[in-house]
């Protein structure tokens, strides 16, 4: 059963170039993501991954083709961790998280997420007083807290130090296992992607299309073992030499 069906014929936009030239970001992209599947998108920077996520999130509807989300009539809840944190500077950390709820915010869930992200002490602080890494963690909590049906993450661990990145990666993984939901995850880090994903999608430079679509066959129980990840990565790069040039 598919959760997201993407079929984009053409996505062209004004590139902000001085001579007003058009930029074709995506051409003939077909991608289906199964329900509760964890998919990593990998590709060179500027290849159109963010554009694709924006289109899935419904922020950008100027394209030819279609994106179908969810099989039920009810609209799927989408949590979107954008590339930059995008917190409201005039609302506290806590208020920023609570604002994304239509109904009363679940205090316990927010508390536990704040604790897990080590942000207890700064709940009542305005975001601009926090480091970018901390702001990023708040943005991640905001997306986790709504219990999304689909979680879109655009390089969420960039600008975090290695230990926090590892910790949040583990948290993401735990949450996903506790409550399965569909995840589309953009990354630059092949090891990270192998450790997390069911499937790796390698994307070309623009106009973006899929170069290869590779299932990660390591058992979920063995993903903590870095030698397993390393071995899978070696085989992958040997079998698909084209990938090396993309990352």
């Amino acid at each position, binding site marked *: 059963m598919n959760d997201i069906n993407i079929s984009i014929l053409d996505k062209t936009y004004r590139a902000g170039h001085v001579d007003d030239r058009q930029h074709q970001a995506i051409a003939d992209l077909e991608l289906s993501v199964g329900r509760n599947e964890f998919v990593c998108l990998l590709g060179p920077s500027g290849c159109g991954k963010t554009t694709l996520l*924006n289109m899935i999130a419904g922020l950008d509807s100027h394209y030819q083709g279609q994106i179908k989300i969810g099989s039920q009539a009810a609209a799927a809840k989408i949590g*979107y961790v954008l590339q930059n944190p995008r917190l409201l500077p005039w*609302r506290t950390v806590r208020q920023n998280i609570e*604002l994304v709820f239509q109904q009363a915010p679940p205090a316990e869930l927010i508390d536990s997420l704040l604790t897990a992200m080590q942000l207890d002490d700064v709940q009542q602080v305005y975001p601009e007083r926090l480091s970018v890494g901390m702001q990023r963690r708040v943005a991640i909590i905001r997306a986790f807290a709504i219990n999304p049906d689909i979680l879109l993450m655009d390089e969420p661990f960039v600008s975090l130090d290695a230990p926090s990145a590892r910790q949040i990666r583990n948290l993401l993984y735990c949450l996903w296992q506790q409550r399965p939901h569909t995840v589309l995850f953009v990354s630059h880090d092949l090891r990270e992607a192998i450790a997390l994903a069911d499937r790796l999608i390698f994307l070309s430079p623009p106009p973006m299309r899929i170069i290869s679509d590779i299932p990660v066959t390591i058992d979920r129980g063995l993903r903590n073992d870095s030698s397993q990840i390393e071995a899978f990565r070696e085989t992958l790069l040997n079998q698909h030499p084209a990938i090396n040039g993309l990352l």
Partner: protein
Amino acid sequence: MLSGNLRLKHTAITLLSLVLLLGIWQLAASLAHSPSLPPPLRVAAVFWQAIQSGELPYHLGVTLLRLVVSFSISMLLGCAIGVLLGKNKTLDAFFDNWLVIFLNIPALVTIILCYVWFGLLESAAILAVVVNKLPNVIVTIREGTRALDKDLLEMAQSYGFSRKKTLVHVIWPQLHPFVMAATRSGLALIWKIILVVELLGRSNGMGYQLHLFFQLFDVASLLAYTFAFVAVIQLIEWLLLRPLDRKALRWRR
């Protein structure tokens, strides 16, 4: 208690500068020794008399009422139109020329035209003030709307914020500094225009009184009325605008 000390120091400086200003005035008055430059004490006496006779409070009240009405109308209309023009490029391109024209019509011309076309009426007076102030508000708020953060609006959209939520939590805090700027410049501009409006076509209010004092060469009363007005505007700034600013800008680093 560094902030307490700082505040004390600040108050001392304010007091000192005001006392110095009074001193200069007193000195100049003693040197000139003319009824056209009365000393501070004489003005204070006139001020007290005018308050006790009820004349000053009446005319001040009338003018303040006109100020509140014309200010509210121009702020409400100006914010609505400003946001609209900031959002809609076609409308903006169309009405931009009108704005430039209205911005550059001298206040006196609008006032005279309003009185000529609609008669020496209260509504004509208010209209004249509004027409003078409105373009300023529109231009300020339009700039604010253009400067709205697209990233935050996208965030609001991706989390399905309702219109009201977006307005209250995303748009309003960004427009706030622009609204405050329009308010401050608006108060300063409007009360000056109102005086001219009253001088030309009303039989009460500060402008009318000032005109009377001019004809009588009564400089002491003129100064007394001026200080009453300046004091009121300062009170509005201290009791209303500053606290509003402090509350809204807590988050700033």
